[in-house]
């Protein structure tokens, strides 16, 4: 996660998951500055970057980080919205994002653009290619203010994102699979188009590991003050003073120290109702270049469960100490969430070390390639509703992000960003305060480097210390990024308005061609259904099913039932005892005409036989129940008679028309697949084929229907038996 800035040394945060040690050994600012000044690679690599710094130095007015004058950053029809695809982006990815692109196109209207990034383009080259000014605020007439980069950081480098983000509101999407792109797109559109309104609830989580100064500072000087800020508890303010920036209608949950354990964090990201806004500060997991866990767990959040650095001799950080993508369960629903993870590698990892290059020969590789952290990927592309955006840090995050050794806490950028998020600004616009901070730090650094580059200048130790600090702060500030669409915003209910439960937008089936086709296992070959087979043709004359295939998707075994008899209304009905029927209550002994008194309160008799209305009512209810009893009895008998086999058939019709009767529909259809599951587990299957073999698409549909039918049958049986038991009780009482 962070470093701690002291006069003596810089203590870097971020924990090596394999060893439990800090990722970078402490060093003094003087040592750091020496490395900066000595590094030839630095000078070469950052020449263009320093030119940017020079430009930034001229733009300290925060308004200059918004789009051009006259454009409201809340209105996409004014700011524009664009997607930037990496060159040769897979068409499946573009298609998967289609619903989001259509949605944004409708919002941004004439200022909607689809752009492409060419390999190795600089920001200037990119903007020039698309006809935009290479400096100055975003002009939607040329390139939209909100830009969504689609591609991994190998295709669209982080450095380009940092540069472009200065004048534009930039976010990035990268997932390993098209399904996750599709799910993210659906999540955003669902959140913005379905009257979706979450409760105004925010959670602030501050890990404070034992004997770890980094997380002590981040919990006490970052998380707690920010939570207090939102809850209107201004530090050092007289009692009763009300902040002009207050959010009284927001419910804030603050989990600092012992409350920041993995279990609680997992609840926030996997429980029934995650908050709308989540802010966490912790160490991030790091691994050595090439470690098998690096791609999957780097950037995972180390929780309060980690015993701290003094016990790092115990070896690697255990799985139960940190929250990774693996811990976000499938039944979580993160729809609408915007999260900010202050942690090393919380958003991603560059291939090369962005911080002091440890040798003069060039930057050190810290990963086989740059990548987006898996945890935010999992959150954004969650199959049951994804987060809208995750803000985080690429590379190591440093303590100078929020605290200065000379000036104390530096929270203005955080508070301003939070304020704008809570006020409904798109996340990209709200995040501009971080760009402003980066600009200021860059300005300072630029000045300092000019001085250092003067051949007549001889820096002393103090100068070197200052350079080291400024370099670190600058690189730290630029590395905050948005993962997700920069135009998303908190979808919360207005004060006093009703909230809406998160809808499930689960994809029931995978996108076509993205999974291995479900084929029957060898050596058995599927029985083909070339043309309307008769169900009977599944078996051969001998009655044995030689061409039976087992679907690759697991089929639930049919449990052997134990038959019991349930008597309803004089009819004895076989049912199944594997289902637990509710325990019968004892029947009352009272007669219809008796008087009654309960707890000293006389309840007026309304059910007595003297009442004509009550008599009619009783007769009506009794009649209705009797009819239902008969129906249920017959149904249960039928159920039991047919329980030995479950049959699922799938037809295809070229003539499906509205208004057709059921019989007409099936009469004009072609039978394409049949599955029969016997009580003893034997399964007979006819699978669909095409000229090329098994029709995978239809097969997948059929298997899904089989699974659904099995699950339904089990549940229906339980429910029906319970209903029958209930009826039996009533009849017994009568």
């Amino acid at each position: 996660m962070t470093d701690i800035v002291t006069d003596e040394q810089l203590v870097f945060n971020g924990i090596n998951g394999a060893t439990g040690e800090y990722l970078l050994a402490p060093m003094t600012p003087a040592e750091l500055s020496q490395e900066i000044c000595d590094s030839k690679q630095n000078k070469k690599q950052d020449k263009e970057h320093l030119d940017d710094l020079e430009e930034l130095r001229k733009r300290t007015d925060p308004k200059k980080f918004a789009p051009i004058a006259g454009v409201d950053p809340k209105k996409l029809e004014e700011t524009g919205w664009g997607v930037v695809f990496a060159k040769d982006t897979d068409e499946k990815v573009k298609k998967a994002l289609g619903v989001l692109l259509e949605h944004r196109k409708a919002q941004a209207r004439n200022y909607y653009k689809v752009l492409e990034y060419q390999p190795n383009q600089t920001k200037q080259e990119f903007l020039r290619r698309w006809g935009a000014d290479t400096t100055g605020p975003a002009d939607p007439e040329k390139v939209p203010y909100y830009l969504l980069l689609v591609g991994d950081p190998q295709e669209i480098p982080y450095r380009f994102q940092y540069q472009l983000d200065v004048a534009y509101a930039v976010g990035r999407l990268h997932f390993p699979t098209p399904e996750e792109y599709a799910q993210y797109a659906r999540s955003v559109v669902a959140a913005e188009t379905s009257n979706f309104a979450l409760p105004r609830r925010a959670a602030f989580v501050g890990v404070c590991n034992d004997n770890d100064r980094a997380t002590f500072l981040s919990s006490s000087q970052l998380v707690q003050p920010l939570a207090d800020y939102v809850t209107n508890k201004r530090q050092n303010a007289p009692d009763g003073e009300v902040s002009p920036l207050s959010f009284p209608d927001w419910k804030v949950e603050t989990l600092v120290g012992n409350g920041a354990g993995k279990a609680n964090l997992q609840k926030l990201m996997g429980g029934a109702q995650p908050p709308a806004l989540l802010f966490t500060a912790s160490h991030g997991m790091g691994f050595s270049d090439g470690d098998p866990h690096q791609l999957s767990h780097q950037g995972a959040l180390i929780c309060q469960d980690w015993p701290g650095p003094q016990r790092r001799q115990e070896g690697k950080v255990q799985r139960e100490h940190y929250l990774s993508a693996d811990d976000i369960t499938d039944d979580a629903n993160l729809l609408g969430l915007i999260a900010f993870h202050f942690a090393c590698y919380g958003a991603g990892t560059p291939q090369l070390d962005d911080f002091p290059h440890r040798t003069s020969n060039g930057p050190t590789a810290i990963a086989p390639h740059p990548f987006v952290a898996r945890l935010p990927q999992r959150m954004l592309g969650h199959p049951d509703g994804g987060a809208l955006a995750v803000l985080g840090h690429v590379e190591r995050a440093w303590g100078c992000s929020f605290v200065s050794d000379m000036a104390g806490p530096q929270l203005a950028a955080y508070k301003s960003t939070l304020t704008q998020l809570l006020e409904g600004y798109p996340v990209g616009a709200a995040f501009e305060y971080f760009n402003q901070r980066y600009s200021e730090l860059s300005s300072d650094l630029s000045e300092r480097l000019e001085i250092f580059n003067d051949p007549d200048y001889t820096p002393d130790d103090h100068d070197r210390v200052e350079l080291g600090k400024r370099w670190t702060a600058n690189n730290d500030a630029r590395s905050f990024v948005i993962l997700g669409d920069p135009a998303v915003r908190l979808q919360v209910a207005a004060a006093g308005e009703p909230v809406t439960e998160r809808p499930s937008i689960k994809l029931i089936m995978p996108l076509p061609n993205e999974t291995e086709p479900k084929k029957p296992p060898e050596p058995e070959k599927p029985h083909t259904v070339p043309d309307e087979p008769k169900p009977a043709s599944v078996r051969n004359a001998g009655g044995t099913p030689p061409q039976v295939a087992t679907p690759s998707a697991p089929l639930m075994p049919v449990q052997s039932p134990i038959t019991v008899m349930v008597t309803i209304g004089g009819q004895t009905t076989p049912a199944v005892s594997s289902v637990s029927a509710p325990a019968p209550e004892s029947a009352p002994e009272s007669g219809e005409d008796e008087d009654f008194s309960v707890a000293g309160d006389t309840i007026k008799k309304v059910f007595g036989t003297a009442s004509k209305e009550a008599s009619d009512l009783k007769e009506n209810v009794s009649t209705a129940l009797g009819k239902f009893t008969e129906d249920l009895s017959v149904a249960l008998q039928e159920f039991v008679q047919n329980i030995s086999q479950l049959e699922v058939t799938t037809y295809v019709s070229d003539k499906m028309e509205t208004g057709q009767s059921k019989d007409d529909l099936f009469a004009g259809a072609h039978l394409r697949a049949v599955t029969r599951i016997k009580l003893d587990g034997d399964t007979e299957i006819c699978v669909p084929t095409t000229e090329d073999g098994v029709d995978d698409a239809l097969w997948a549909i059929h298997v899904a229907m089989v699974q659904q039918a099995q699950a339904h049958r089990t549940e229906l049986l339980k429910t029906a038996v319970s209903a029958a038991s209930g009826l039996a009780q009533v009849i017994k009482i009568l």
Partner: protein
Amino acid sequence: MELNLCDGAAPIDVLDLWTSNAATAMDSVTGDISFDVPTTPVPVLWQVNLPTDPVLAATRLGASENSLRRSQQLLTVAASRLEQLEPLGPVSFTAGAETMMDLPRPERELLALLQGEAQPVSFSVDDNLAVSGLGWEQAQQVFQTLIDKLRQSVAECVSIETRIAGRLLAHTSVNWSGDVQTVWPGSNSVEEVMLHQRTVALALKSRETMLKMFTATVQMAISLSLRLSLPGGPLLVLPAVLRFIKQMLELQNSPQNI
């Protein structure tokens, strides 16, 4: 009989989820009560008509799934609340209307119904549901609705259709023992397939939920009739308890009560 996924404006059924195109007792709480149960249950067609936008379609189905889930959860809550219900005598009911008014509306109306007191004044202050003879009529109608639906749902076959802006997407027929027949068009997208599968699941879950509602109602009626020593036993308490559940369901689904 066609049951259509409720779109917010149409009359609602016992689950507050489906509407019916047939004018039956179950769809109206103000019409004449009919206990003339048809001898042969009418086959049921569960029909869902979705918008063309796949995301909106999925969202709408998701909202209905959530609503159904909440209905199932509510049955447990209702049982718990009924267990805590204590009867109030005529004196406290009339002179101490404040005590009655402290109760949630479903409890208030259930107690009033069971006590047989027509005290519209007491309850006309803050809501539109006067406690009168109409209370029993409503209770009977709700009960009749459920029984009718249950009878239809255990019919030999139920059919389930998904439509996209009126266009038939797929048709599934499910018999009581669970056998499934589905007819699909010659070509369909994965999203459309998913929508129909969710529709099928929604319809079948609705049927299960109605059965569970019936079972829960019976259990609660038996328990309540024993605890309050109500004459006539649980048989006559059934409609009142079911109306109690229905009111809780309506309140739960009312936006201002979320």
